C-alpha cells in the first residue's frame, strides 16, 4: 500500500513561503512526477513527504495514517537522492543491506533480499566493491537497490538521473519505468526535465513558485494545458505563445500553438522568413520570423530543404489552437 494524501501543506523558511498551500492525493501504485523549473519547490515538497523537512502547517497522511510528525525512518518510504548518497566506507552489499540491518532483520533473510535486489539491478558482480569503484550508472543502481530491499510503501526519487550522461539517462529512465511495472509500488519522482515527466508518469504535477499549476496525465497536459505556464513547460520544443493583434483576432490575450501543429503552406495566413533551421533527419525545426509576432518555432517531419532566409507561409491547425485569457488561464 502506498496512498499519500497532502492537506493544505505549507512550508516556509523564515519569512519566505516556499510552498504556500498544497493539496494533493497520490493513489497506491501510481507513478507521479513532480515537474517544474528550478526553485519551484518540487524537491522541498518531496522532502516534506519524506520527513526530511518539517511542515510549517497542514498534514501528510500515508495509507490513511497521519505521518506529519513522524520521523523519516518511521514513514516506510525509501528515497533515492540526486547525489546517490551512498555510504562511501561500505561495500555495495553493505550499502544495500544497511536499511535491513537498521530494521533488525536476521542476516540470512537480509542476504537473500540483497541477492535478489542485486539480480534485478545487475549488480551481482559488484557486491564487494566500494561505491568509489563504480560508474555513475552503477552507483545509481546501488542507490535504487538500497531503496528496493526495504519493500517500502512508496519510493521517492529526487532528480535521480541528473548526474548521468544523456545516453545513460535514457537507459536508466526505462529501467526505472520497468521497475515500476514489476514492483507496482507508488513512486514519486522529482525532475525538471519535462521529457522524463512525459515518458515516465501516470500523473504529472506541474509546480511553479510553490503552487500546483496542473495535475493530470501526460497527454492531458499536452492536449489541454490549464494555463500559459503549463503550455510553455510541457512539450518539446515549447509551445509558441503569441500575444498582441494576432491573439486579439481569436478573442484571447494569448494564443498558443505547438510547433508540430503548424502546416507549411505557401498561402498560409502567417507569412515569414526562416531565421534558423535545424536538421535532425527525423525532424526539421525552423525558427521563423513573422512581422508583428513573436518568433515562431515550427516542427516539420522528415528532411526539409529550407534554409536561412527562405520565405515561407504557415497555417496553424485550427483545432489545435489554444486560447488563454489575460490571467493566463485556458478558455477551453
Amino acid at each position, binding site marked *: 500500500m502506498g496512498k499519500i494524501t497532502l492537506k493544505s501543506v505549507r512550508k516556509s523558511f523564515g519569512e519566505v513561503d516556499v510552498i504556500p498551500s498544497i493539496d494533493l492525493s497520490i493513489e497506491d501504485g501510481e507513478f507521479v512526477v513532480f515537474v517544474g523549473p528550478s526553485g519551484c519547490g518540487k524537491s522541498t515538497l518531496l522532502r516534506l513527504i519524506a520527513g526530511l523537512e518539517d511542515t510549517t502547517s497542514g498534514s501528510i497522511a500515508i495509507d490513511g495514517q497521519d505521518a506529519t510528525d513522524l*520521523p*523519516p*525512518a518511521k514513514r516506510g518510504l*525509501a*528515497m533515492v537522492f540526486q547525489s546517490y*548518497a*551512498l555510504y562511501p566506507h561500505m561495500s555495495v552489499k553493505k550499502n544495500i543491506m*544497511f*536499511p535491513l540491518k537498521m530494521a533488525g532483520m536476521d542476516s540470512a533473510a537480509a542476504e537473500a533480499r540483497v541477492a535478489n535486489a542485486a539480480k534485478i539491478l545487475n549488480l551481482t558482480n559488484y557486491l564487494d566493491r566500494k561505491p568509489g569503484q563504480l560508474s555513475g550508472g552503477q552507483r545509481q543502481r546501488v542507490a535504487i537497490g538500497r531503496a528496493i530491499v526495504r519493500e517500502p510503501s512508496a519510493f521517492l526519487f529526487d532528480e535521480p538521473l541528473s548526474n548521468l550522461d544523456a545516453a545513460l539517462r535514457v537507459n536508466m529512465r526505462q529501467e526505472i519505468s520497468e521497475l515500476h511495472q514489476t514492483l507496482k509500488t507508488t513512486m514519486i519522482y522529482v525532475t525538471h526535465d519535462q521529457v522524463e515527466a512525459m515518458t515516465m508518469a501516470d500523473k504529472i504535477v506541474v509546480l511553479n513558485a510553490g503552487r500546483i499549476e496542473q495535475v493530470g496525465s501526460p497527454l492531458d497536459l499536452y492536449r489541454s494545458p490549464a494555463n500559459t505556464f503549463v503550455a510553455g513547460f510541457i512539450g518539446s520544443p515549447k509551445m509558441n505563445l503569441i500575444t498582441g493583434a494576432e491573439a486579439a483576432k481569436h478573442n484571447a490575450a494569448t494564443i498558443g500553438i505547438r510547433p508540430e501543429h503548424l502546416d507549411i503552406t505557401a498561402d498560409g495566413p502567417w507569412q515569414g522568413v526562416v531565421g534558423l533551421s535545424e536538421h535532425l533527419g527525423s525532424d526539421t525545426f525552423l525558427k521563423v520570423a513573422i512581422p508583428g509576432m513573436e518568433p515562431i518555432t515550427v516542427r516539420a517531419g522528415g528532411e526539409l530543404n529550407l534554409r536561412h532566409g527562405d520565405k515561407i507561409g504557415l497555417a496553424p491547425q485550427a483545432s489545435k489552437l489554444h486560447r488563454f485569457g489575460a490571467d493566463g488561464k485556458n478558455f477551453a
Partner: protein
Amino acid sequence: MARKTTQTRKAFVTAIAWIIGFLIFFPILWTILMSFKSEGDAIKAPFAMLSSAWTLESYGEVQERSNYLRFFMNSVIISLGSTVLALVIAIPAAWSMAFVPGKRTKDLLMWMLSTKMMPAVGVLVPMYLMFRDFGLLDTRTGLVTILTLINLPIVVWMLYTYFKEIPGEILEAARMDGASLRSEILYVLTPMAVPGIASTMLLNIILAWNEAFWTLQLTTSDAAPLTQFIASYSSPEGLFYAKLSAASTMAIAPILILGWFSQKQLVRGLTFGAVK
C-alpha cells in the same frame, strides 16, 4: 622547443625545492650530527659537518645528569591529555557548527580564530597570577588545561572543515534507511569522520609536544616536559653544544618518528578543503 623549456624549468624548480627543503631540515640535521660529537669538537668547529670521532658520550652525560624519562612522561601526558580533552570538547562543537549552523556560527568561528592572532605574551601576567591563585603552577593539570585552551580553536576549525565535507545527503539517506540518531552517528558519521579526527589528533599532539612558551613559563620541575629539558641545557653555566644537541635530539625524536609514520594522514589533514 616548448617542451625543452618546460624540462629546464622543471629541473630548476625541483632544485629550488630541494634547497628550501634542505634549509628547513638543516637545523635538525645539525642538531643530530652535533649530538654525536665530543664536546671539544663541537665547540671547535660547530659548523663542520663531520667529526674526527663520533661518540655517544653526550647522551650518557645527559641521561646521568637529568632524568629523561620523567620529562618524556610529562610531555606524553600533557600532549595526549590536552589533545583528548580538546577533541572531547571540539567534536560536538564542530558537529553542531557543521550540521546545524546558527546565525552566528560563522562569527563564532572567526572569533575563535582571532584568539590565535594575539601574542601569548600579552596575557602572560594574568595567566600566571591565575595559575598561582588556583595552585596550578608546575602541575600537569594546569598544563593540560592551558594547552587544551590554546589549541581548541585550531581543533574546532579543523574538525569543522572536515565535517563540512561530509555531504548532508548521506546523513539524510541514513535517516531514510531507518537509522536512529545513535546508529547514524555510529555507522555512518563516525566511520566517515575518522580520517579527519585522526589527522586533527596527530597535528594537535605535535603542536602540544612542541609548545614552548607556556610550558616553559608555567613549570619548573614537577610537571616540566621535554621543552624544559632542552632549556635546562642552555644555562648560565655555559653553552654545551653537544649536550644541548643530545638533549634536543632526545626531545624531538619521539615526535619526529610519530610524524614520519603519520605523514600521509597529516598532509591530508592539513590540505583538506583545498582539494576535493
